[in-house]
């Protein structure tokens, strides 16, 4: 297989603790980012509609026009759907622009679909997420059809509001900035 995100570090953020592998039947949701063929045209179009010197300035696209520009090719849709169906994954929904698929499946199916992945649960307070600490792979013939598969590695990012009033109390010697409030 081919690792689409072999460079994605797996870091468990502070405060999250691993509680072990999930049951094989545990439902996981994967987000498949399908390759968009019209990216270069999209880039040129964005330049034109955003540049006041362009005659196209401000002439934005509707969602339907955008879909027509970047929708995945029939070859991409066929290849990806065939791959999913081959693993018994039928519970998928698309978005209006057709370039993402959200699919539900048991963890055991996801692990067969994406060799290398292993789904574990991590908890922080009352919150829990399921992620794979190991990189996933896809069949090489799908590399031209998929950008990445979401829902495996990245943890929800914490917001950081700084409270300067607390900074003096919480700043360690040598640190420049203060306490963080999640």
């Amino acid at each position, binding site marked *: 297989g081919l690792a689409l995100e072999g460079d994605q570090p797996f870091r468990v953020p502070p405060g999250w603790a691993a509680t072990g592998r999930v049951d094989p039947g545990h439902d996981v949701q994967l987000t498949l980012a399908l390759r968009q063929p019209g*990216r270069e045209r999209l880039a040129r179009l964005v330049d034109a509609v955003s540049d006041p010197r362009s005659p196209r300035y401000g002439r934005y696209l*509707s969602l339907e026009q955008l879909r027509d520009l970047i929708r995945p090719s029939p070859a991409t849709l066929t290849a990806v759907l065939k791959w999913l169906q081959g693993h018994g994954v039928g519970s998928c929904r698309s978005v209006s622009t057709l370039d993402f698929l959200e699919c539900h499946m048991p963890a055991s199916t996801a692990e067969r679909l994406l060799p290398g992945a292993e789904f574990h649960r991590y908890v922080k307070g009352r919150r829990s997420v399921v992620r794979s600490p190991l990189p996933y792979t896809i069949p090489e013939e799908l590399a031209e059809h998929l950008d990445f598969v979401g829902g495996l590695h990245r943890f929800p990012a914490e917001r950081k509001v700084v409270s300067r009033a607390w900074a003096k109390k919480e700043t360690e010697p040598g640190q*420049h900035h203060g306490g963080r409030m999640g």
Partner: protein
Amino acid sequence: FHLGVTPSVIRKRYNMTGGDVGLLPNNSQACAQFLEQYFHQADVAEFMQLFGSSFGHRSRVDQVVGHQGWGKAGLEASLDVEYIMSTGANISTWVFSNAGRHESQEPFLAWLLLLSNMSSLPWVHSVSYGDDEDSLSLAYLQRVNVEFMKAAARGLTILFASGDEGAGCRRVPGGNHTFRPSFPASSPYVTAVGGTSFKNPFLITAEVTDYISGGGFSNVFPMPDYQAAAVRRFLSQASKLPPSSYYNSSGRAYPDLSALSDNYWVVTNRIPLPWVSGTSASTPVVGGMVALINERRLQQGLSPLGFLNPVLYQLQEQGHSAAFYDVTQGCHLSCLDGTVQGQGFCAGPAWDPVTGWGTPNFPRLLRALLAP
């Protein structure tokens, strides 16, 4: 004299008058929340009662997309909503609440999918969220960047907080340090908002750099044409720069502009809290102003501003420098090592990687953006 930043302090500093409020029913603005950060309508109402008497405003969020929990309100969510509704006063406000309802969902990705699925959206989105660029795969960074291009093609303005770690710091293999850019602020298709403080913290005075203000150069995205001249000027004219090994001078440079980010008052869980700071505060302030400028453009039969950066950088080239208060004092933080000693970049005349072009002078910016 004031005891912290409130809506009236912001509106006064940026020269917003009582007439600078929304009127159109078809204009709207939004902020996005992740990780079960909820706001309470009662906090918004109390905030406006305490701090909103000097300008026309709404006291309720009009639309929540996604799930709003019943737990305690989050400080960050309260901050976003209260301040986007203070500069974008009387404009219909939406909150996108993306808690990641499913255990294996990525909340940020869920928000991107919502944008790709909704045909009718607010024109302006303020998002105070960021990750270290090096914590994300190249495939993910590049695809998310395309998602911002999609938003730009639809005329949406997407604003991201530039981060609260200054230039950031990362130890690379071999033991050396480099600065650490923040994404999505480092995407060339979003507008990144940095932070400033009042020079005198108790008076409405000129602004200086807020040392936490995120900024620098992407290690992934090349410098877009729209900013090349401004950044080149900074790099050639700065009196002091960090060693070039700390940053990629040919990368997308950010932030693009700034607003006050220090010492805000926020009402959360019915309690007014002082001393809230961060570029999480400056981003919705700018978001509300952009929504108000969109409103004036819509009134004149013009299109919404959409992706803001090309026009922002062109304004300066065209001599509209009065559209911003140029912030020229102060530096932001970075690596604590013997070479840079905690100092990243320093602000200077015109664009710089600490405060961008500076902070908005609303009437001048409005005038410039009504006929760019």
